[in-house]
């Protein structure tokens, strides 16, 4: 039976059936509804967990680090500035191989301050040693949290997992979704049984000082764990499909890709709009398809190259930019093809930063090359705001 529910509340429900023992968070828009709902669920005793209200995201991440290290399944959520404040702890969590799950309600990064959606926050944390999964819609977002614990806690992985869902677009929108019962969740996700944790009966030292003689090996082992997760992510998606009958792809997913000459690659909620654009172009007989990047870390190099090998042209649409380089995802796809033959033409497009609307027309415009290409990869740039060093009050007012 489907429930018509806000994305954040659907996620909170999914986190609840994962039976976390410790939840810690600091409020930040647009993550708030998730943790407010979890606070309510804990207050009503629906899950037996400690909810720790902290004084900053830095402490939220530190609290779940401590609780996970003590053997308790742990959860937190944040976005943008909060994610950046956590940055030092994020690297520490992955370095200690603690399989925490965190929701990132994707949002633009300040300055200028902007609370609307893009994916600059999580994509900027790509080197932090966290697995990063991107959800397309609310059903996938809620299902992904169960998958995330199962992936992260796999003995061959033991890495934290960031479930990325677009702020507002998913977190604050209502959609009918299948919620997961406690019995079904328990059948899918076993309890957390770490081998090493802080326990007086078997004392371990965690976070030791490691010099040049062994530090590199810790990074090698993390890379190896990430590589192990490639198969685990696929396996867990299939297991989930077997039990629940829902599948969104493992590392990637495809849509009308079989005979596509032009392929649009993207991640997150914009894929719904992309699919609408593809449907309308298909009706006109154009051979267009979609490749969804579901896992950004590990980056599915092989799966992406395999899926795109028949394409002539690939458009990568992304809501983030590495200033001084350009698109992050497009750069990585180009790198994945390096040294291969039959490489399609790959064009990166930066769209939707800071919540700029992305329509079917935007996407069709990019494909037709009708967009203004004078701003490099940036789509829909407003000339009057960038070319006049001091835009007139009228121009500013017109764009407000």
């Amino acid at each position, binding site marked *: 039976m489907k429930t018509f529910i806000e994305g954040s509340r659907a996620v909170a429900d999914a986190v609840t059936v994962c039976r976390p*023992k*410790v939840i*810690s968070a600091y409020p930040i828009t647009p993550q708030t509804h998730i943790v407010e709902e979890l606070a309510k669920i804990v207050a009503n005793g629906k899950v*037996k*967990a*400690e909810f*720790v*209200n*902290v*004084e*900053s995201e*830095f*402490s939220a991440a*530190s*609290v*779940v*680090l*401590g*609780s*996970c*290290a*003590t*053997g*308790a399944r*742990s959860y937190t959520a944040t976005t943008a500035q909060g994610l950046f404040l956590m940055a*030092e*702890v994020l690297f*520490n969590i992955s370095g*200690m191989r603690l399989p925490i799950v965190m929701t990132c309600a994707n949002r633009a990064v300040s300055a200028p301050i902007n609370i609307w959606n893009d994916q600059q926050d999580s994509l900027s944390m790509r080197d932090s040693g966290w697995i990063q999964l991107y959800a397309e819609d609310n059903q996938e977002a809620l299902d992904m949290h169960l998958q995330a614990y199962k992936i992260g806690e796999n003995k061959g992985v033991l890495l934290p997992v960031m479930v990325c869902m677009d702020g507002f677009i998913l977190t604050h929108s209502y959609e009918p979704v299948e919620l997961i019962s406690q019995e079904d969740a328990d059948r899918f996700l076993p309890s957390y049984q770490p081998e090493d944790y*802080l*326990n*007086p*009966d078997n*004392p*371990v*030292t*965690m*976070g*030791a*000082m*490691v*010099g040049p003689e*062994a530090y590199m090996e810790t990074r090698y082992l993390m890379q190896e764990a990430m590589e192990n997760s490639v198969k685990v992510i696929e396996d867990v998606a299939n297991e989930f499909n077997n039990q629940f009958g829902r599948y969104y792809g493992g590392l990637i997913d495809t849509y009308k890709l079989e005979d596509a000459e032009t392929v649009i690659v993207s991640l997150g909620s914009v894929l719904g709009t992309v699919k609408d654009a593809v449907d309308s172009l298909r009706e006109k007989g154009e051979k267009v398809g979609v490749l969804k990047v579901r896992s950004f870390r590990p980056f599915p190099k092989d799966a992406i190259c395999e899926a795109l090998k028949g394409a002539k042209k690939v458009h990568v649409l992304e809501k983030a930019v590495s200033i001084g380089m350009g698109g992050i995802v497009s750069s990585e796809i180009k790198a994945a093809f390096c040294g291969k033959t039959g490489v399609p033409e790959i064009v990166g497009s930066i769209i939707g930063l800071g919540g700029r609307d992305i329509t079917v027309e935007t996407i069709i415009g990019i494909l037709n090359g009708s967009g203004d290409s004078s701003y490099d990869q940036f789509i829909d740039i407003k000339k009057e705001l960038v070319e006049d060093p001091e835009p007139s009050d009228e121009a500013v007012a017109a764009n407000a």
Partner: protein
Amino acid sequence: MIKDNLFDCGHTACLGCGEALAAKRVLQVAGKDVITTDATGCLEVFTTRYPETSWGVPFIHSLFENSAAVASGIEAALKALGKADEVKVLAQGGDGGTADIGLQALSGMFERGHDVLYVCYDNEAYMNTGVQRSGLTPFDTATATSPAGKYSWGNEHRKKDIPAIAAAHGIPYVATSSVAFPRDIENKVKKALSITGPKYIQIHVPCPLGWRSKPENTIKIAMLAVKTGLFPIYEIENGDLTGVRKVSEPVPVEEYLKLQGRFAHLFKKDGGKDEIKKIQELADRNIKKFRLN
């Protein structure tokens, strides 16, 4: 394997390290059923050089500024796992990790009421990085970042009063102690661990390297800090001052200062006497405030 010695020898602390002596004492009292955290700093570095460890109890070092927050998470996990009655949580940090970069996390831990004992080993500067001043460096101390010079008497600021800040949170137990009085450390740690809620103990621990003192003088110097009134020893329970270590005949601060190279400029430069007078006033104020004599 459970070690009989919960804080093993063989670590790499400097000769005469007050912090190592105090930490060993704290651990012996805390016992084996404890989970410890530590902020980045000397203690973590000299006890956990991979692949060796001095800790016979579960120990975690995460970052410089989050010892209190990590301890909060451990305590929350113990509660959720139904182990809170069996296992105590001991958070540790140096003066920088506690009073400066970690103060926010410490305040959060106090405010939320976690059942954690936080011990600050106060050696009055960032020793692990090479003796730079911290918020707990005393007035007129020469450090690497507050050097004495033609226009400087060293650290311009007074030592931040962290015990008062801790007490202002309304936590049940705040105390100071000194490595010169091991029995006092033992009694206070024992007492703190018998109380539920957040507890704070700040232990004065001389650092021969940073204080430029003789290793064999560590205890003597720590003792003089107390006897001059510069480091008063007291307890605050539920906001009330409940105990002080009396200093019947206070020693002039010169006796304390002259044993340490970090104050040598006060005895060499013109005007040093006036500066020493200011330090004497700080000691006198403590003597009066805490009714030490």
